[in-house]
């Protein structure tokens, strides 16, 4: 699943063009946010990291090589921005335990590796390719752990429709995420450590 950003848009992004910033945010914003949330486990902090990631990408954009994929480069920057905030919050955590959110496990555990971040990026990108109905179903099934019958009740649709929609969604995901299981048509690995060094 290769998504190559329009080099003209990337060039305009480097110049600070507002429309280009919006275009790249709409293409990659949710992916950056997913990476940040994966690292931080907190929505507000993930939003801050997303903002920082795009700002850092803009600052580093002069050294971005147009022949490379923009997504993996941005994913690397996003992870670094999120880890910086993770470290900042960890420094404050010892003095604010009474306010700590137990669900914010990202603040008290090691951040995910670049491979894990890139897997998350790819899965979120694959989910973007599903129809809204398919995405809703996958969310109910995997994140909420509902059975087909429970999903049918929740969505008020026949179980047979749930099953067929589920099959279509997972067939599409399996195809889009083939590279994560080592198929021959695998994506090149992300340029680990290159983005943040620019």
């Amino acid at each position: 699943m290769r998504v190559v950003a329009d080099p003209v848009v990337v060039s305009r992004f480097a110049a600070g063009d507002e429309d280009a910033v919006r275009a790249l945010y709409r293409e990659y914003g949710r992916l950056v946010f997913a990476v940040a949330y994966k690292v931080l486990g907190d929505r507000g902090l993930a939003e801050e990291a997303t903002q920082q990631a795009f700002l850092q990408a803009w600052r580093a954009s002069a050294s971005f090589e147009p022949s490379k994929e923009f997504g993996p480069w941005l994913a690397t920057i996003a992870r670094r921005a999120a880890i910086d905030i993770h470290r900042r919050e960890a420094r404050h955590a010892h003095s604010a335990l009474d306010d700590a959110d137990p669900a914010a496990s990202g603040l008290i555990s090691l951040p995910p590796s670049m491979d894990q971040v890139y897997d998350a990026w790819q899965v979120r990108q694959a989910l973007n390719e599903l129809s809204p109905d398919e995405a809703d179903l996958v969310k109910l099934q995997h994140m909420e752990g509902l059975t087909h019958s429970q999903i049918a009740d929740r969505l008020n649709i026949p179980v047979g429709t749930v099953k067929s929609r589920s099959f279509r969604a997972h067939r599409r995901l399996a195809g889009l995420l083939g590279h994560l299981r080592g198929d021959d048509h695998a994506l090149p690995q992300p340029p680990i450590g290159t983005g943040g060094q620019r």
Partner: protein
Amino acid sequence: MTDADRIAYLAGDQAAVDPADAAELDDVRALLADPAMWEQPDPHLEDTVVVTIAGAARSAGPVAGRKRTRRPILLWAAGAAAAAVIAIAVAIGIGSGNGTPATTFSVALGGTSLAPAASGQATLTQTNAGWKITLHVSGLPRLDNGRFYEAWLKNPADVLVPVGTFNQSGDITLWAGVPPTEFPTLTVTRQRANGNQASSGQRVLVGLAHRTS
């Protein structure tokens, strides 16, 4: 493992794949169950990103241009020199009280996910004593009994400088000892009077300063 087996296992059929072969798909299934894959950012985040980069572009000049030719460097340097002259002139003007308009910045504040109904508008005015911040906030519920709001200015390195505290929405006056040119992000957090002077990180309002005069 066939494609049909993979699809079935991904869809939740545990018996479709030998456990020894399943590990390669378990990571994907774990991610599909991860809230990080499903959580949505605030719709206003796009505007915040655009505003942040636009502000940085205005204050720093285009990064791309600096690398490619010498001419933009010279122009940038000339611009910086001109800005310095203007800044000195403004400072002299303020110091002598000759009626020169004060340097001002404005900030449009948006509510975060902790306070989506909140918003605000701030004007930062340079004075001899420091930067006077006139803030109007709406949509924030009253905090008291040891809880309060605190406003901060933040620089790109995430250094926070406190600029004042308050209890609820309304017209508020704050003072800052650092300039918005160097600390352009204005944030408001929820705090507790528990002896910890650091930011709680519970941001309710965020905005970026833009020069208006």
